[in-house]
């Protein structure tokens, strides 16, 4: 896999991870936890292979989100991959004792690489962008057109009303930033000095309040939870 022609080049094909000896399934024949927690040559070898897996996961994720980084060249992309892999390696080793064997170790490790790479891409993509959290915006349904059903317009109007009256100002700012302005949740968490989990909880409460409002106004069926 190469990213030498990164700018504007097609995304590299995702190939199965390969060990130096050509073994495709990196979980086979290795006790990852024991080797990584141990010492000596097996530890060093396991560490090297783990970092290789994390680079693969990070590279895949960075390419997956490549569209968020227009104008960023191959060298910077690769620096981003390597940095995220280093961070992910630290995270995997710190949580090694929480691996329960419910999935393959490689899958468990990949998710750390994917998470760290995604965070890096989103952070870089928004590094120079301001995140506004206005609470004075007014929402309307789109002007009805020939293609626009009256029911849909009515629902949009009800949701706009729910945004205005059913949410606290903080819930409204978070919902608008995440869902309407599409600010990545990690970026918003960084800017507000909070966590992704806390923001998602706020968003869930906001959605629940909107749904309750819509149920009360007859726009959402209490039995099915669907719009009538």
């Amino acid at each position, binding site marked *: 896999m190469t990213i030498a022609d990164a700018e504007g080049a097609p995304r590299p094909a995702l190939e199965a*991870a390969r060990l130096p000896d050509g073994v495709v399934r990196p979980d086979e024949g290795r006790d990852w936890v024991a080797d990584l927690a141990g010492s000596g040559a097996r530890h060093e070898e396991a560490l090297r292979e783990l970092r290789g897996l994390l680079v693969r996961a990070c590279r895949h994720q960075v390419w997956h989100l490549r569209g968020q980084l227009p104008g960023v060249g191959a060298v910077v992309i690769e620096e981003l991959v390597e940095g995220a892999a280093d961070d992910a390696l630290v995270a995997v080793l710190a949580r090694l004792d929480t691996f329960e064997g419910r*999935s393959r170790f490689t899958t468990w490790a990949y998710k750390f690489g994917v998470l760290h790479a995604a965070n890096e891409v989103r952070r870089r993509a928004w590094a120079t962008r301001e995140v506004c959290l206005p609470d004075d915006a007014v929402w309307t349904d789109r002007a009805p057109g020939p293609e626009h059903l009256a029911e849909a317009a009515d629902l949009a109007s009800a949701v706009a009303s729910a945004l205005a009256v059913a949410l606290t100002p903080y819930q409204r700012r978070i919902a608008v930033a995440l869902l309407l302005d599409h600010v990545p949740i990690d970026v918003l968490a960084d800017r507000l000095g909070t966590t992704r*989990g806390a923001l998602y909880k706020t968003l869930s409460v906001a959605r629940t309040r909107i749904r309750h409002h819509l149920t009360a106004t007859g726009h959402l069926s209490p039995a099915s939870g669907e719009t009538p």
Partner: protein
Amino acid sequence: MTSTPRPLTPEDVRALTLPTEPWLSCEDCFDLADRYAEALVEDPGTRALPEMLVHLHACAACAEEAESLIRLVAADAGVDPAPALARLHG
């Protein structure tokens, strides 16, 4: 001072009204992501961990990461990720 009215698109309406039950936090989603990705690649119709699908439909960041994990797992298993991804996005 009040801003100019902003239109709510059908996609905005859908995003604002998505169900969030059964509840799952982003942290719990991360903890389960490896098991779920493997289960979905092995059987795209799996009914395991239904709370994961609800969360992944409601959380764009977790969904982006789950998609990559599914692609990596599928590549290692030598199978087509498309059915699992279709379930994820369905």
